[in-house]
């Protein structure tokens, strides 16, 4: 994709915890993949971003969403549900990236058609490695639908 478009991949990080945001960004920092990372810290903002509402009117359509589950205002499960119910958004891959290893959370996420579910490890080196694998897989290895809104 990158070779064809030469455009950076757009990644939307939906995460409320500032520490996690920073650590995730750190882990993504040394990526070989060219990408732009946007961050929103609650579910409502995530939906507004995706639907380009309000202050997000000029925002691009992301290639990948990294979604935490426990979010203020509207939690990750609801965000996931709305994305999958929205014709315009349903094809965007969503990687659930969360602290929870709760069986219920895992099952629920897949039922709501998350593309994959990842529990964040405590160890930073391990976390960095996982992030590498995620971008390698979702932004390099797999073929995704062509972006409709080329700008």
């Amino acid at each position, binding site marked *: 994709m990158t070779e064809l478009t030469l455009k950076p991949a757009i990644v939307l990080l939906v995460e409320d915890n500032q520490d*996690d945001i920073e*650590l995730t960004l*750190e882990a993504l920092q040394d990526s070989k993949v060219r990408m732009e990372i946007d961050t929103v810290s609650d579910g409502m903002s995530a939906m507004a971003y995706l639907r380009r509402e309000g202050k997000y009117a000029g925002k691009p359509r992301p290639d990948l969403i990294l979604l935490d589950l*426990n979010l203020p205002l509207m939690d990750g499960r609801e965000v996931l549900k709305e994305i999958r119910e929205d014709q315009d958004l349903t094809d965007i891959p969503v990687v659930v990236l969360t*602290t929870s290893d709760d*069986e219920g959370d895992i099952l629920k996420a897949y039922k709501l058609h998350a593309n994959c579910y990842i529990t*964040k490890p*405590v*160890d930073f080196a391990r976390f960095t490695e996982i992030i590498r694998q995620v971008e390698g897989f979702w932004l390099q290895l797999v073929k995704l639908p062509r972006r409709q809104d080329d700008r």
Partner: protein
Amino acid sequence: MTSYQWHIIGFFTVLLVQLLLIGLLLAEQRRRKRSEQELRISNEILEWRVADRTVQLQENEERYHSLFNSMTEGFALHEIICGADEQPVDYRFLEINPAFERLTGLCRESVIGRTVRQVMPEIETHWIETFGRVALGGAPVHIENYAAPLKRWYGVYAYQVAPGKFAVLFTDISERKKTEEALRESEKRLNRSQEIAHLGSWELDLRKNELVWSDEVYRIFGLMPQEFAATYEAFLEHVHPDDRTAVNEAYSDSIRAGLDSYEIEHRVIRKSDGAIRFVHEKCQHVRDEEGRIIRSLGMVHDITERKYIEDKLRQLANFPEENPCPVMRCTPDGTIMYANVSAGRWLATLSRQIFGSTPLPEPVLKAVVKASRCGHAIDTEIVNPAGQTFGITAVRPPGEAYINLYGIDLTERKKAREALERSNRELEQFAYVASHDLQEPLRAIVGFLQLLENRYEDKVDDKGKHYIDRSVKAAHRMQTLIRELLTLSRVNSKGSTFLPTDLNLLVQSVLDNLQTTLKEKNAEVICGTLPTLSIDENQIRSLFQNLLVNALRYNESASPRVHIDFRELDDSYRFRVQDNGIGISPQFHQRIFMVFQRLHTDREYPGTGLGLALCKRIVERHGGTIWVESNTTGGSVFYFTLPKNM
């Protein structure tokens, strides 16, 4: 005196004698003539008399013969036959009349001239003995007896005709005897019936002031039947003192008031054992033509057993009534047949919910209909307007058309259940928060420390790096603790359903996991063949994992050995995990299964103090028990049981 004189005297004497003789002869001649005449007359008279007498006798004989032949009584003339000791042994029939034939069924030809033993060899000897006494002694007898050979009863009059001869005059009394016997039987039956029914009867003749009790009345009063003549006073004496006045008044009042009958229940004290018996008395008065009561007929019925049963029945009938929970019975269409007080109160609280003709609320009615169709109990819950929750179980007893309804106030239980559910939810919430929110800052700590170490490697000296390392390790340990606590808290709430699992495969997968550790420690695990059991696979895997890790961890042997096997018990399997490790002092055998109870510092042997607590909780969730047998010299043996049926 001279001889002449003597001659003259002699002459005259002879003459005199001659003269005397002649005179005597003449007199004799005359007398003979007279006698002959008299004899002739006498003979004539005699002949006349004989002729007359013969006519008389002929007439008599004809008369007697006719009587003899026509009399209805049997008549027979016999002669007694005695044995060597002159005791009567037999008797011979000399003459019988036609009635004899009729009354005995024996014919004249077979009887006359023969003895009774010839005619009836089986004749009872008492007949011969009795008749022997009559024939030889002369005193007549009148007897009534049974003659077995003839199968009849006879009333017999026997009298002596001549020494050694006797006549009998007899009638057949079999019918009368039969009637008498029947009467006796009937009385006996009545007596027996009264005894069986415990129903005695009495009769009071007011004119003669005579009271008669049947045998059963005596028995009811604990007396010997007909022990003494019945009196009204004797009766009152047996009546329970507390009932005496009432009983006495019942009788006298009925007479005074001119009633035809009365009845009363009262107690009597049985004389034989002092037991209190309940009787039912019923009396009827009999009046003469002028309407005066002349007799009272009564019955005494011992109803103690009935009273006892009635009492038991009453208690049984009160049983549902005394139930503090609602108990009802209704027809399959919901019409209430019975409701106890509690059910009445409960129904009253539902008054605003009553629909249709039945006061049963809709959900209960549905349960009734369902229960009447199927054989098992149907439960339903219903909340009344006051907010009380009642559980109602509807069940149709086998073979009955009605439905029984059993209610129970579940209000408190429901509150408790809701509180428990709330508490469980909160606990879940807490566990979730612990797994998620407690780990987030931990991850941040570790993450930034590691970033610090990597990005500022040249700015941090070795001591600083050591601190960072210690902090990261502490955070990791904290994470392990959080995880294990979570696992522990989830054993019951988040367990999976039990499925048949091959424990051989399960243990093998644990061993595969431990491959590296086994190699590092030069350890060997010897596992016998294990059964397939219905279990929560993840939890039992965790159980084996923990036990094996412990067996290897707390082990200083150069070649640690662990044996796993099991033994089948009555209703469970007992598993054994045996090691050659450092062992555990018996004083700690309980403590090791408690949360955070460690016997060693983390430096000696790493661990969280949660492993065995988790094992215990897992085994207990499966309905088993876990224990250890060990000392500090010979390794440890951990046992746990898993029931066969879960």
